[in-house]
């Protein structure tokens, strides 16, 4: 089992999901808990399930409600008056959003706890800095630094949007994509890893497919270490699907079959 990235052992990848019940009832060992929480970071559906099951446990708790002993309130209120409150996390440091930066997982300088520790604006700044570095190292020569910065800022804006949420999907033929969507920004950030290398004549292309038909988004840059660096896709419309296909390098007017990914947004 590798801790970084999406790859977790086969049985572990299958197993965590069944832990949802035990997890919300605290019926698991601390190591299992941590493992499952890492799984939740990557699996929106599981996180939603956990949230729903928690409501059920709240009702189990409610069924036990018992008046606390007299005097408890005074003690708690007195203690509260002398207890400093934890400051709020700024939106950017919201754990789910921080986790949404899926591709950062592969970057060893930022270990998971460090990323969690990054707070507020510092997170956004660090993210932009990283993406810029990443873009400069990986982007094509003629791409201007300004473009990278603009794109990185757009990416950061999506990642730090209040409604940003991440979806992870397997790609037909191999690989995984992480997509962070922000409805309020009508945009998403796409990244992928482990994609199957294509012949030199073909490349991966992203599409938005809506009720009015398919719109090509862009040919993705060539794989670097089987990863696709973050791509911003803006101008989302209601009912759009995000589709990934393999196309001739020059691009196509219509998406080729098979769709290697068809994600409802």
């Amino acid at each position, binding site marked *: 089992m590798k801790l970084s990235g999406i790859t977790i052992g086969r049985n572990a990848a299958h197993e965590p999901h*069944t*832990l*949802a*019940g*035990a997890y*919300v*009832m*605290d*019926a*698991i*060992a601390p190591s299992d808990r941590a493992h499952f929480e890492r799984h939740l970071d990557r699996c929106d559906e599981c996180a*939603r399930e956990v*949230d*729903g*099951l*928690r*409501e*059920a*446990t*709240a*009702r*189990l*708790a*409610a*069924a*036990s*409600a*018992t*008046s*606390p*002993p007299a005097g*408890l*309130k005074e*003690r*708690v*209120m007195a*203690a*509260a*008056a002398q*207890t*400093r*409150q*934890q*400051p*709020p*996390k700024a939106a950017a440091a*919201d754990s789910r959003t921080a986790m949404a930066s899926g591709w950062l997982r592969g970057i060893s300088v930022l270990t998971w706890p460090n990323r969690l520790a990054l707070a507020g604006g510092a997170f956004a700044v660090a993210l932009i800095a990283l993406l810029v570095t990443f873009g400069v190292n990986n982007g094509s020569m003629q791409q201007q630094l300004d473009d990278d910065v603009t794109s990185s800022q757009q990416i950061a804006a999506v990642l730090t949007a209040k409604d940003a949420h991440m979806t992870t999907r397997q790609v037909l033929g191999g690989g995984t994509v992480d997509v962070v969507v922000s409805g309020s920004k009508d945009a998403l950030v796409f990244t992928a890893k482990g994609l199957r290398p294509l012949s030199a004549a073909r490349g991966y292309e992203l599409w938005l497919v809506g009720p009015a038909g398919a719109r090509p988004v862009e040919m993705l840059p060539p794989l670097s270490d089987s990863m696709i660096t973050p791509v911003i896709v803006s101008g989302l419309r209601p009912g759009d699907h995000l589709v990934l296909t393999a196309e001739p390098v020059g691009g196509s007017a219509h998406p080729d079959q098979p769709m290697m990914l068809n994600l409802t947004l």
Partner: protein
Amino acid sequence: MTVMDSQGSGEPARPGHQAQGADLAAQIVLVARGDAAAFDAVFDRISAHVFGIVRRVIRDPAQSEEVTQEVLLEVWRNASTFDAGRGSVMAWVSMLAHRRAVDRVRSVQKETERERRIATSEIPFDEVAEAVESGLERERVRRCLGTLTELQRESVTLAYYGGYTYGQVASLLSVPQGTVKTRMRDALIRLRDCLGVAE
């Protein structure tokens, strides 16, 4: 609602969970800003809930009181971390309370192997002293627990009310761990649906 409170306490029927929950969530926001009056009001809404589940798990009254105090103080301290997008205040508070209760039980357990070995037949999921929550709510939970299979119900009650890990539950029930894990999840999904938990 015309259903009589089974406690006969004459409490008025409770308004919907939704409206109450939204109101409570708004108060937590105020608590996060250091509003002591809001915390006072929140205390009145959640303290019985917290003490109830903590005592159910820990049993010992003195320790239960201590842990309850810790949990309520944690609500004050960490109010800013409450995320309404993830669920209700009660779900959040129950999580804090249950987790601390279980942690306490397990740390005590390490020193002295727990003496109580609850036979599953004795799980008193309907036994509640001095309950303040309306009898209606308790009745609903009991009815929903009744819709579970025996193994599901035992797994849930041993884990949630008993504070056992799924491994311990598996050995208490002499069932494979994998089975218990699955039953716990199935049971909670069924309870969630039966209780009409709002997403």
